[in-house]
């Protein structure tokens, strides 16, 4: 048992489980720091998984697949920006609507493209890009940290998320910044979806399976900071991998209790017991 937990295979499982969480959480961090709640992460993951499958299928390769995931996610992110930034729709309502939309449209297109309402055929063209995507994820975590804290764009983005009127009085366009944030968030969450599709080498209806919401929780647990959000995702991934290994080993530890741990931690964080979880001040306000 101990040997299993120290093995490379276990570590690899933790990382594999973490990647989609981390990519979605990065997208969530970016959009929420600009002041827009992003409950649509789930839909972005799912839509990214589908659009990457389309990319890999018609582009005959992993690059086309990844590109498809990123572009599909960005497109859905743009739709979200149109709804909540330009048209000033309620962010929770629009986010939920987008999740339902993603579930429906992927099923519809799945049926139209592959004549199945369950899954696409296996796409061998995905090859073995897992390791590459893991490295890209690590690089993106670092990049998001740098952009958010060390660049003028990041400063403006955070300013818009805290006090859009003050930012506007200094010549920053809150709407433009939020558009950029949401499209980028969509792109990176779409990449998370591409990971899901590439790992299975096919698209399966509903395959995001709530990972977007877990990413949302991880982002809050990481207090809206990219690196910490990613670390929280790693913790969630660790708990899930541990739960899986515990089940396989058949030892009498209640596996579900182990998987519950990160959520309990998140609630404790939200309740303010581990420092203060301070949301961006303008979060959720339409204008």
């Amino acid at each position, binding site marked *: 048992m101990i040997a*299993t937990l120290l*093995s490379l*295979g276990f570590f690899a*499982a933790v990382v*594999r*489980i973490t990647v*989609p969480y981390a990519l979605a959480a990065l997208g969530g961090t970016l959009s929420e720091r600009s002041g827009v709640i992003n409950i649509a992460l789930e839909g972005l993951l799912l839509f990214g998984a589908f659009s990457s499958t389309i990319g890999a299928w018609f582009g005959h390769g992993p690059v086309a697949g990844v590109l498809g995931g990123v572009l599909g996610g960005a497109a859905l992110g743009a739709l979200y920006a149109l709804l909540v930034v330009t048209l000033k729709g309620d962010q929770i309502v629009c986010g939920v609507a987008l999740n*339902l939309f993603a*579930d*429906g449209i992927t*099923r519809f297109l799945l*049926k139209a493209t592959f*004549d*199945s*309402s*369950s*899954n696409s055929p*296996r796409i061998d063209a995905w090859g073995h890009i897992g390791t590459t995507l893991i490295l890209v994820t690590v690089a993106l975590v670092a990049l998001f940290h740098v952009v958010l804290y060390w660049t003028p764009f990041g400063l403006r983005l955070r300013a818009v998320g805290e006090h859009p009127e003050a930012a506007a009085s200094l010549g920053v366009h809150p709407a433009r910044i939020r558009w950029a944030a949401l499209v980028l968030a969509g792109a990176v969450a779409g990449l998370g979806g591409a990971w*899901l599709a590439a*790992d*299975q*080498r*096919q698209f*399966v*209806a*509903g*395959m995001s*399976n*709530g990972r977007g919401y877990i990413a949302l929780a991880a982002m809050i647990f990481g207090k809206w900071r990219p690196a910490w959000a990613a670390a929280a995702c790693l913790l969630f991934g660790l708990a*899930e*991998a541990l739960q*899986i*290994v515990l*089940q*396989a*080993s*058949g030892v009498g530890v209640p596996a*579900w209790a182990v998987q519950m741990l990160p959520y309990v931690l998140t609630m404790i964080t939200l309740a303010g017991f581990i420092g203060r979880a301070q949301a961006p001040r303008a979060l959720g306000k339409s204008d």
Partner: protein
Amino acid sequence: MIYRGIVRRVVIYTALLVALNVVLLAVRAGGERKVGGVHPVRGGIVFDVGGRGDKSFNDSAYRGLDRAVRELGVEAEYIEPGEGSDRESGIRLLAAGGFDLIIGVGFIFSDDLYNIAKEYPRTHFACVDYAKFDEKGFVVPPPNMVAIKFREEEGSFLVGALAALVSKTKAVGFVGGMDIPLIHKFEAGFRAGARRVCPDCRVMVGYAGVTGDAFKNPAKGKELALAQYAAGADVIFHAAGTTGLGVFEAARETTKYAIGVDADQWNEAPGRVLTSMTKQVDVSVFETARRVRDGGWQGGVQQFGLREKAVDYVYDEHNVALIGSAVRDRVEALRKEIIDGKIKVPER
């Protein structure tokens, strides 16, 4: 100000629609319908999560009714619900449309079908994998409803024995979808079958979750399978819906074996699918449709097991080389013992 006009209009239209709805509720497919006589039997299927094209359960039910269309002249309608409440409205749509037979594919329909069957006593209903329980236990369906139940544990017993006989590591695995009694039947049968032929074999078990989503989480299925393969298992049986697609992906990557469920899943990973424990939902659906047309309808629980050839495992030109005749003979002997009642397969 301008909004007040819009609001009023919305309120009026909503009220009108509600009124129309109430009126339509009173409308029932009226008149005495003569079943099996002049007009053809009209049968409708409402599919479960996964829907048509799942290459398994739903597709099998579709084949059953499709065969009834070709051989019995039944008129068929298929409804594929999306999320949640669409299921009930799908059944209601068919019931109100005057269908003679309405089939819900999956235990998830148990409550809805039970309730609607009581509202439409002249319509026939069938629920595949019916499982409705209240505080007093199992709820017997009304006389116009059939609960189609399969003895999954019997088929699982055979593939469990087969897996243990083929295993070189003396360790086999089971990946379940949702952690519920229906799936425990598969696990119990599989475990008992493996133990029967190999008492010192290890049987590893993993479930994807405790909600319905656990049946469509392939990434989780893959990780569960990889963990069991890493711990020594070389054959894994799944009963997990599309979560099982992840098990096949893991079998491909590790070049080990997986066992499919519900339908022949050889094509999901050719060469790596040792066999599949099949549930002939089509047999039960066709048989039910035939009884509605020709008479002989009998409500209540109908059990389909090894004896009825409604559960089985795949042994054909694809996997004959993977299994071999010695193992086949051993498993067939077990089949006979089960049918003869010499082996009692546990359900939990």
